[in-house]
């Protein structure tokens, strides 16, 4: 039960039920695969500058839209050493998928 609650907490924005912000959160989730795709491409190509820019933005967006866990994972990608990036990216993608599925 608690595992389910944790999972719900990490995949659901705290603003999901907010009258005004709820629709914006939905629209944010819809745009998530595109943002992730661009970051993943940059990680694959090893474009450091682009990785920093995109992961920093993703982290800020996720935090703003109420996805604290997603923001933390994006920050891990931002701070990861080049050899650890793919692993951090995998975790980020996994959570992002679960968020999109919960929509």
């Amino acid at each position, binding site marked *: 039960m608690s595992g389910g609650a944790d999972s719900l907490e990490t995949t659901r924005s*705290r603003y999901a039920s907010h009258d*005004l*912000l709820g629709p*914006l959160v939905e629209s*944010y989730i819809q*745009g998530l695969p595109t943002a992730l795709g661009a970051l993943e491409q940059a990680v694959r190509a090893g474009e450091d500058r682009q990785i920093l*820019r995109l992961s*920093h*933005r993703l*982290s*800020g*967006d996720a*935090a*703003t*839209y*109420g996805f*604290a866990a997603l*923001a933390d994972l994006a*920050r891990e990608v*931002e*701070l990861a050493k080049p050899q650890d990036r793919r692993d951090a990216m995998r975790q980020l993608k996994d959570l992002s998928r679960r968020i999109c599925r919960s929509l």
Partner: protein
Amino acid sequence: MAGSKYLGRILLVDDDESITRFYETFLTAAGFIAHSCHDLKTAKDLLTQYYFDAVLLDLHLGDEEGIGGLPFVLKVTPSTKVFILTSHGSIEKAVECMRRGATSFFTKGTEPEKILAEITAHLKPAAKGPLLDPETRKTIGLVGDSPAIKEMLAMIDKIRNVDSTVLILGESGTGKEVVARAIHQTSPRAAEPFNAINCGAIPEQLLESELFGHKRGSFTDAKTDRKGIFEVCTNGTLLLDEIGDMPLALQTKLLRVLQERQVTPIGSSMPLTINTRVIAATHRDILDEAKSKRFREDLYYRLSVVVIRIPPLRHRTEDIPALTSHFLCQFNQRFAKNVRPPSASVMARMMAYDWPGNVRELQNALERAVVLSSDDELSVSDIFQHMNLRAGTATSDETISRAVFAMPLTEAKQCFEKSYLEHLLTISGGNISEAARISARYRADIYRLMHRYGFDKGSFR
């Protein structure tokens, strides 16, 4: 949250559109008029067009540093509260921003309710009596004890319980907005919003919509109903800055609003009753403009129920030491310096100078001098560096400077203005934003002057 009380005008600056959309939605519903932009250049343009009560500024604006916009905001609208938006990794920088004059900072992920509460807490006017005590005067930048300033303060005091329209006249850089704010703060409306709009810097169609509001569908870009500044500022005070530059067609509409105390949003047939105190300001000789039919005479008489003339700085040179001390204190704090007050000989030189750009020129000169000072001393060359730059450009400038003393004043002023503009465009390479920044004027002002003197920016590139 429709019908929320008006809380003020806020500018959201973040290169990420999804962030500005989030806060714009929330803060608009809470009662703010929110403007969003994604780079510093647009932010600076907006800051010269509108008075903002608050700015929410992201530290990372793509390739730009948000912190770079802080000095501009603090210089152009010192009473605007700047809140920094930052990610967890940049808290040190955010703290640095506060040292430089930002009010507070938020990390991304802070609940919008908390952000709203903190911003509104900082915007609440201090509970003070109607009279301007020395500390309040200092805070709003009304510094000086010369007879001219005392006379002006006495006038502000005299009208504190009168709700009349006020017309503030003064050369550029004398501090017309500061005086308007002082009038508001001493009036019974002090707890209500103060708002300002620059009538010379906003295109006519947009200005009408900003002033009176519009209904959805009334013109191409009117996607939603929008309240005008008269309506959101009802019970408060509205400064119509550079009223002398307002298009004639709008002057007619404004006159009707002032007479009937009603506004009709564009696309609506339902007038709304408003209770907004209007203060107008201009650097122009407005009576002369009225005589030349560029300004409606009836509007002039309607606006000039009470007229306050702000003396140019050269007519109150005894205030220069107090102003210098006030600005030095500000800049030392902002730039983490400890520059000492000028020596008696430097001060004598400062008091002998005419300061054609008035308090704003003094402020800019001191800011530059504090930044340039390497030994915590203020030197004449640092303070008058802008004059040195000018003198170094062309001998024709020096000829002009001697010849102007033989001219009638109006002609001499125009001669200086033209020469100044030419120099400005030369050093900025025809870059209008840069020219506006250096001269601490609006971009619209630069364009207007270029038009007046027949300058083409391309010829300076």
